[in-house]
């Protein structure tokens, strides 16, 4: 699995939605599955999958799948 697929899988597992629904444009609080409770599950999942430690700014800034990629890139995760 490349990092793009890992990211899709992490979102899919944490939010309980099919991987094909995980697109760059998917945004926090626009689907019932991605609410503030699921957001914390998602953060823990991303930390596990990519072996990073996210801080509180990252959690607040992670408002979309596209943003998640930008934030993970700060921690040297690359997406092609």
């Amino acid at each position, binding site marked *: 699995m490349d990092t793009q697929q890992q990211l899709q899988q992490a979102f899919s597992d944490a939010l309980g939605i099919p991987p094909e629904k995980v697109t760059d444009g998917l945004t926090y609080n626009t689907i019932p599955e991605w609410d503030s409770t699921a957001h914390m599950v998602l953060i823990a999942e991303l930390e596990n999958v990519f072996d990073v430690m996210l801080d509180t700014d990252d959690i*607040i800034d992670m408002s979309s799948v596209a943003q998640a990629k930008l934030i993970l890139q700060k921690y040297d995760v690359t997406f092609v």
Partner: protein
Amino acid sequence: MFPGYPTDLFDLPVYGLARAEKQAMLNGVLQQLTAYHYRHCQAYQQMIDCSPFDFRNAAGDAQLPVAARLFKDLELASIHPTQVFRQMRSSGTSGQASKIALDGESARRQSQVLVKILQSWLGKQRRPMLLIDAPSTIKKAGSMTARAAGLQGVSLFGRHHCYALDDDMQLNVERVLAFCRQYEQQPVLIFGFTFLVWQRFIQALMTQGIRVSFSNAILIHGGGWKKMKEQAVTDKTFKAAIRTTLGNVSVHDYYGMVEQTGTIYVQCENGYLHTPVWSDVIIRNANDLSPLEHGESGLIQVNSVLPTSYPGHCILTEDLGTIIGEDDCQCGRLGKYFNVHGRVPKAQVKGCSDTFS
């Protein structure tokens, strides 16, 4: 959308703006908020219109406050019902609950500001976190209680979250001890509501003769002292019992309310509550509502720049407090600092509304 926020308002240092600059900023925003709610909330407009008060010529700190209890009696909102993203309600077990309507933008702004305030006490890094509550508290459906909002907001600062209580609100000793064994030597965050921390956690540990020795923990707690006072527990005895039972814990009370979620007042090392840059407190005489000097005890009014979806930017609470000073606390934080003494005795808050029934 409310157009009146200066650019970079939410990037201001939390406790770094001195009086003149802070009051100038607040005056501008609060006055515009009054004008905005006057246009968007009919009940608020009627309240303003039936008083001789002219908000257009009044400074921000002289804007007419809305009595907190009106949020229990009325549905005060400046947004259309279809725009309501979340309804908040107070967790009070007795009587009616306040109902606060938030749109998506307000909810987002509240968490943003809460995070900024807490970051200045906790740093940006997240810590292993012990929550003195039950997992079911945030899972309850329907509108969100202040307690759930607090748990959820502060959870951002934690990792490896551990709920200390079971759903029957009893301490799960095994789970707590497992958490302590694993993280005792790390910087840990403990969060909970004051009375739950006292009765369900500290007292339960003491009864069972259990002691833990955290090397570097911070406890944030809030929700009021009413039940603590009934048991004659003071801030001092509370802190002492925590250190005896849990080890090296720095303890910070906070004051806040569902009517102004986000702008909380956190207690410093010297025992005073501090106003962040986005909010302010005014103490008023309980008999004629005139503003009082620092050092005098009276009703607490809270002003906040955050409420745009409901007219809650200036609220007169039913709590009594005293402002100690402004910009000169020994802890170095700027802004007013104050103490809360508790609720107004019930007999005093009976209004005259009965005369109309």
